[in-house]
């Protein structure tokens, strides 16, 4: 059965921008989760295509807003996400840009939740304890896991 809910991580292999991949891999190891889980490396606008089959999408991404690394931010408003996200982008194009484009083209899922994980872009404060984050995100997606 194809789930109408997805949890999609985005990022890159560089430094802590890899955090979403780790979260998705951790979620994949939970056999009770029946939700579609995926990860894309710098998908640019292709992310909009990837989200098309789903009514509800939880996006997981690294963000920089100068709070403590490991802080989990939650957004349902892409404009609030855009305002609070320092450009952590590839080729001048970040997740916020993709979502704003999706809004203009009417290609966003009916429900979109962004889980932004605060990272230290310089990676100087040690590894983020991402297992706690996985638990928090899991609690958020559990109502869709039916």
């Amino acid at each position, binding site marked *: 059965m194809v789930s109408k809910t997805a949890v999609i991580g985005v990022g*890159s*292999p560089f430094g802590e921008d890899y955090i979403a991949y780790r979260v998705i891999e951790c979620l994949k190891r939970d056999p009770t989760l029946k939700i579609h889980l995926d990860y*894309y*490396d*710098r998908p*640019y*606008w*292709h992310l*909009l*295509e990837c989200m098309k089959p789903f009514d509800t999408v939880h996006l997981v991404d690294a963000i920089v807003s100068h709070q403590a690394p490991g802080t989990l931010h939650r957004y349902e408003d892409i404009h609030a996400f855009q305002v609070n996200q320092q450009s952590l*982008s*590839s*080729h*001048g*194009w970040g997740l916020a*840009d993709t979502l*704003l*484009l999706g809004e*203009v*083209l009417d290609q966003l899922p009916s429900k979109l939740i962004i889980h932004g994980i605060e990272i230290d872009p310089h990676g100087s404060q040690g590894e983020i304890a991402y297992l706690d984050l996985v638990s928090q995100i899991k609690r958020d997606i559990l109502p869709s896991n039916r």
Partner: protein
Amino acid sequence: MTDSFKDLSIPIIARVEGEGALHLQIRDNAIQSLALSIYEPPRLFEKFLEGRSANEVVDAVARICGICPVAYQMSATHAVEHIFEMSITPWIHDMRRLFYCGEWMESHGLHIHLLAAPDFLKYPSVIAMAKDHPEVVKRGMHLHRLGLDLMSLLGKRSVHPVGACVGGFYAAPKPSAVKTVLTEFKRSLPLAEELVQWSASLPLAKSTQTFTSVSLRHPHEYPMNAGRIVSDQGLDIDISEFDQHLKESQVPYSTALQCHLHGKPYLVGPLARLNLNFDRLPSAVHTVLDRCKITFPTQNMFHSIVARSVEIYYAMLEAIRIMENYVEPTAPCVPLTPRAGIGFGCTEAPRGLLWHRYAFNAAGLVTSSRIVPPTSQNQARIEEDLRQSLMHYGLDHSDADLRLHSEMVIRNYDPCISCSTHFLTLKVKRW
């Protein structure tokens, strides 16, 4: 070590991507100095490759660029196969072209719509452009995705693919998977034809410049993986002779090496390819271009966006041709036997010539490597273009206007520093 390697006496200059800034000095309404500086720290890939085996090289170089990993893999595999004296099968030859078709579509599709088109239609970004031209943007997204599909078909994933190896591919796609992609390509072909016509109808400036085009040229193919290096000024050399004619040098303001042909800037990339290989395109492409009011060869740099569109259309035709004849092979790669030697690989990355040189020891490990990416080859040409374009535009414009115009000129080359040219730091000093 040869004299040319002495030129590379700063081993940390292994730049293949970068972030850029433009420094401009104007005196008495004339450009006193202009410097495009790439200041991203060195990435040291050429050094990382030393001591690695052939297939480690193929996997490692894919990490150099998230947009054109196929190009890096193809130049590397050809160089290694040259050293190991390997001959590939017709199936591998075709699959490499198919792989490259995907990358051209992915890279050009992204550049045309995300980066270049908003400039020509006077929008600050594709997001603003999409409000007025949603179907154009959706078409671009679709063609870009088809490119990703092709890359995934052979590379197993589209970003930093892992399917290619020295001698071919680790696995052959199943005919059913090829058929699925083929069906979508055939259905979408009219979109690529529309793209060519649309790009040719853009309000592109009618300015011409004198520049030298350089690309590969193959006896009968539109060049991707093989050919001699030629120019429209009579250059016609084997790829092993690159160093004798195209010289890298360092400028004090950039961490990337610049490259000159016989001491002069030159152009690589889709416009240069099309200028030099127009006769290698199939009649279907010629027919579409006949309906447009742009002819090739052209000396108008702004026709680059049309050249990219033409190459997307061509890539789709070529991909369809290859996939229609697809047969699952008995073996997706030929075996390799390491041997010592020096070899060269040169292929046509989306942005132009990508030249690799490797030396291997008898144990099959890299002892030295050198990579000359297209962006460093175009740097001097970009500076030359900026000088002419800004003079033509008028230096009495405001700093903000000069910045916008400079960004448009730079973006037109689709440099891998396009990430930073969107946030170009322009320093203008006036007297």
